[in-house]
C-alpha cells in the first residue's frame, strides 16, 4: 500500500504538470461546450418538446461519456506509459522493487480518476438534469474499465511517445464510434459492439426508464465481453511487455 500510495501521488502530480495530459483533460470539456453551442436550435426546440429534449440530452451524455473515456483514457495511459518507457523511468521503478502490477494499478486508478473528473465537468456543461448524474458517472466508470486495460497494454507495447501516438489511435477511434451515430444512425449496430457502445446504450435506456428490460441484455453482454477481453489481454501481456522495457 505504501508503494501504491507513492505511485498514485507521483502519477497524479505528473498528470497535472504534463502539458499533453492537460490538453487531453481540457479537450473533452471544450468539445462538450462546442456541441452544446452547435445543438442550440435543437435545445431550443427541446424547451417545448420533452421527446426532443430527451433525444438531445441523450446525445450530449453519449458525447460526454465517449470524449471523457476515449480522449483521457487513451492519452493519459498510452502516452504516460510510453514516456516512462522512453525515459527508462519505468525500468528504474521496476528495478526499485516496484512490481509491474503496482505500476499498472496506480496508472489505471489515476486515469480512472481523471476520466471521472472530466466526466463530471462535461456533465455539468451539458445542462442535462442532475437526476441522470449518478447513472452517467456509473456507466462512465464501467465503460472506462476495458479502455483502461487496453490502454495499459498498448502503452506498455509502445516503444516511445512517437509510437504511442500511433497506438492510441485505435483506442480513440473505437471509443468515439457511438458518438457518430448521432450523424449516421445506420452505424448504430456497429457502434453497439464497440467498448463504449454497450454503456452508451445502457445510458440511453436509463434515460428512457427502460434500464431493467430485455433491451439491456445485449449492451451488458457487450460491455462484459470487452472488459473480459481487456483483462485477458492485460493479464497475458503486461508482465512480458513490462520486462521488455
Amino acid at each position, binding site marked *: 500500500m*505504501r508503494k501504491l500510495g507513492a505511485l498514485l501521488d507521483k502519477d497524479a502530480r505528473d498528470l497535472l504538470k504534463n502539458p499533453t495530459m492537460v490538453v487531453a483533460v481540457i479537450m473533452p470539456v471544450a468539445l462538450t461546450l462546442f456541441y452544446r453551442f452547435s445543438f442550440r436550435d435543437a435545445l431550443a426546440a427541446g424547451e417545448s418538446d420533452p421527446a426532443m429534449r430527451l433525444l438531445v440530452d441523450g446525445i450530449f451524455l453519449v458525447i460526454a461519456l465517449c470524449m471523457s473515456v476515449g480522449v483521457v483514457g487513451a492519452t493519459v495511459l498510452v502516452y504516460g506509459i510510453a514516456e516512462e518507457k522512453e*525515459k527508462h523511468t519505468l525500468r528504474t521503478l521496476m528495478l526499485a522493487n516496484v512490481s509491474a502490477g503496482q505500476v499498472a494499478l496506480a496508472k489505471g486508478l489515476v486515469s480512472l480518476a481523471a476520466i471521472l473528473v472530466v466526466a463530471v465537468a462535461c456533465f455539468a456543461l451539458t445542462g442535462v438534469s442532475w437526476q441522470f448524474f449518478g447513472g452517467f458517472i456509473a456507466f462512465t466508470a464501467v465503460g472506462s474499465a476495458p479502455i483502461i486495460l487496453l490502454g495499459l497494454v498498448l502503452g506498455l507495447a509502445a516503444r516511445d511517445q512517437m509510437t504511442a501516438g500511433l497506438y492510441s489511435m485505435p483506442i480513440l477511434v473505437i471509443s468515439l464510434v457511438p458518438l457518430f451515430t448521432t450523424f449516421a444512425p445506420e452505424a448504430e449496430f456497429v457502434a453497439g459492439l464497440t467498448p463504449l457502445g454497450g454503456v452508451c446504450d445502457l445510458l440511453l435506456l436509463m434515460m428512457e426508464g427502460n434500464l431493467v428490460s430485455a433491451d439491456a441484455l445485449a449492451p451488458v453482454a457487450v460491455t462484459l465481453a470487452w472488459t473480459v477481453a481487456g483483462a485477458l489481454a492485460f493479464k497475458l501481456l503486461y508482465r512480458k511487455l513490462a520486462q521488455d522495457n
Partner: protein
Amino acid sequence: MQAREDSRTGNAAARDASAVGPASATSAAAALPVEYASAADLVRGEVGAGRSVHLECSRDAMRAAREAVQELAGPRRAAFYLEDDGGFDRDTVRSYLRFFARLAGDASAASDAIAHFGLRERAGVLVPKLTPEERALLGFARVSLLDPELCFCERPLLELGPDARQTVLAWIGAQSEAGTLFVTCGQPLREALLMPGRAFWEEDGRFLAAEVDDDAADDEGEPAFEGDEVRVCKIAAKAGDVTLLLDPREIDFIESANRVNYASVRGELYPTALTMDELESELERFGFFRCHRSYIVNVQKVAKVERYTRNTYNLVLSDAHHSSLPLSKGRAEEMRERFRWR
C-alpha cells in the same frame, strides 16, 4: 565482515564449476577463481561467494551482468544505477528523491541523500536541467535511499569530476564496509580497481582477474636509486605509425590494461612495448612509484591520497582528467616511507 567473506571464499571457489583454475600466488589468493567463462558466471560466482566484483567489459557483458544480478537478488534489497537512467522530466531533484524515499519507506531520508551527495543547492532544479555529473549524483542518491544489500552500477564514475568521484567512492566504500555487495561495470580497468572487491577484465568473452599482487618484496633485490646520477631517459611509445619518445616528466602514470602497457600523457594513453618491470626500473629515478601491479604513478602528479575502506586506497592525480589510481594496501606503507609522508 572480512572474516565472513574469507570463510565463504574457499567453499565458493570449490563449488563454482564455471570458474577456471586456481590462482597460483599466495595461499589466501589460491582459493579465488581467476577466470570465468562469462559475465553471468562471474557475477554468480563472486557475488554468490559474498564478494563485490568490478568488471571492465563490453556493453553485452554489462547487460548479462545486470541480468545475473537481478536473478541473484531474490528477496534481498537490490538497487541499480544504470547509465541511461533518465529521471522524470517534470520532477525536481527534491521531488524525485522524495518519491523514491517514499517507495523505500522513509520519506524523510530524501533530504539526507540530497545533502550527502552535494545536491542541496540544486534541490529545486528540474531533473532534465541537471548536468551529467549532477544527474549521476542524483542516481546514486536514489540508489542510496533503497539501502541496498546488493547494488549494480553501470559506469559509475563516467560522468564524475574529482569531487563527485570522491563522494561516490566514499559512499561505495562506506556501504561496502557495512556489508553491501557491489557489482560495477565499465571502463577503464583503473576504475574497477578503485572499488572495494575484486576486479576482472574481459578478453574474448572471458573474464580474467586483474592482478592485485600486494607483495612488494619482489622489489627488494633491485638496486637502489643513486640519487644524483644523470642518465638520459626517454620512453618509446606509439601514436599510430609514429614512435614518440616521451619525456618521463610528461608522463602522468603508466597503466597496464588488457596485456598492453600505456603511458598517460596529458590525458592521452600511448601504448609502449616496454614491460611494467622495465618501465618501473627506468622511471623510478624520476620519481615514479609502482603503486599497484598494473600502475606506475608519477608521484609529482599525485594531488592526494584517499582511503575509503580499510583496504582501499586511491591516488588522485593533478593531471588533465584528475585521474584516480589504485594504491595497493601493501604498497601504501612503502610509498609513505619512501617519500617520507607523515
